[in-house]
């Protein structure tokens, strides 16, 4: 499940919590992406936790890059991109989960999630700047 190296260093990015809880073999590269719980294979990926203050700014930042809010409750935000990937945000805990579109072929799901994660990383940097 381990993916190749990535140029982004999630652990060093501002706003990201310490990565100790994510130091397991499921961690994908250095993006802090970890295969999340889901019955759909390889579709759901957890990011390293970010500070709650940053998660509060994320929905607006994602809206600026084309995501639309599909929020069922303010306790769980879910901006969804027109290409159907989404970022589930738990403001209270700093939890962030990336969901690749479910029609993505199995072999391409990890790459799709990683692409969203890169965008997500850039937004976090911007949110912290």
């Amino acid at each position, binding site marked *: 499940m381990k993916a190749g190296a990535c140029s982004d260093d999630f652990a060093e990015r501002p706003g990201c919590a310490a990565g100790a809880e994510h130091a397991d073999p499921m961690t994908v590269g250095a993006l802090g992406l970890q295969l999340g*719980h*889901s*019955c759909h*294979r390889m579709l759901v990926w957890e990011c390293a936790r970010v500070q709650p203050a940053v998660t509060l700014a994320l929905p607006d930042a994602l809206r600026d890059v084309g995501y639309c809010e599909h929020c069922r*409750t303010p306790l*769980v935000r879910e901006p969804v991109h027109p290409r159907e990937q989404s970022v*589930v945000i738990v*403001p209270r*805990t700093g*939890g962030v989960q990336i969901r690749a579109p479910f029609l993505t072929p199995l072999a391409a799901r990890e790459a799709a999630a990683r692409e969203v994660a890169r965008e997500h990383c850039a937004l976090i940097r911007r949110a912290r700047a």
Partner: protein
Amino acid sequence: MESLKVNALRRYLLEQDLMFLAGQPAVYHCHHFNLFLDQTIDDALGTEESFRLRMSAAREFSGHLLSAVCEHAGARTPPERLQLAAQLFKLMGHGSLDFDADLSGGTAHGSHLHYGFAWLEKYGKQVRRRHPADGFAAGFAAAALEIAFELSPGSLRGVEHECVALRAPQCRIQLDGESSPDPAGAVIGERESENVVGPPEDGLFEDSIHPIVLGLKEFTAGVQGDERGLVQAFGVFVTMHLCGYYNRISYDAVQTIETRAPQSVGVLEDLLRESGHVCVFNTFGGILLSPEWEGLVGAPTNEPAKILAWCIAIGRALGMGHWTIAEFEPERRLVVRTSSSYESVYYRTRHGLASRPVEYLFQGAALAMAQLVHRVDWESKPQLTADYYKRLFKGGVPWRAEQTKSIVRGDALSEVVVTKVSG
């Protein structure tokens, strides 16, 4: 004609946690449970007879549902009614149906049908399937045509000739005249349910369970199919499904096997109980590990009482009945009760009193909750994989579940006692 909203059609029976969709008993279940139960019926009856039973059960209960929904929405003409049926099918998370048919029959084209699509997602890489998967969609499509053209219930049948689970690009269901319609069974709605349920009672940890149930019900009110007709929530494909479908295929299959091969009834009943394990492991576990749960309630910890209370809350919110915890001694004993269950409502209304407790889902769920509460390291956020399921449920489960009270045997409530036997 009004646009449909599932939430406007959804009701819960007060204090009983039984859900109704336009007056029809309904419940949320995920694709793991749905596929497992259908497979159980296939194994019991053979794929051809199983498909026929599944289609017939879906047709019967979808017919009741569609009739009520058309009335509610003021749909009068056949095109309006077919459009409404397709819309409802999507909103319930069963996929997309496109009708090319008239009152003599025709074709329903299906895309992203829940059973076929989910089967392909779950098993497609490992198993080659040889028979179509969408008995529910076939029955729903037949009922849609019957309601649209005001035909007698059971006068059309649906046969799936192409299915994505068999690697077809789309599903194709042929709809034509039924040669041997089933006799009409007793209607099961809210009033019949009220006649069967017992007086609701409180159990342990109600102070924490009750608000979670309310929050989850509020959350699921907004859960409905996307433009393809699939519901992704809590990391699973969710359906709002008709309890009549689950119940009829289960109890009719048991009846058939009792007549045909009585020595095999125990095996079938064990599999029906196992559907409760599959449900709790995948759906309840998926919910507990989801970010939605983390936001609404909190991340799961390794506190048995807390996980148990949360599981009970999930069961209630999904519409499985007013489950309560009567006793709990960690690592020793769990007693779960309910004054209501969709199984007992159906069985008592259709079959009367039973000679043995037959609330299979409730029995299986109680045992599975004991296992999840004690044997899962929630704080490690485990992957709920098929291998993990096997390790938890196939390798000598250290619990014995016994149903000691049963609404279907005439008791006021149902009760399952789970005790530690080894390990």
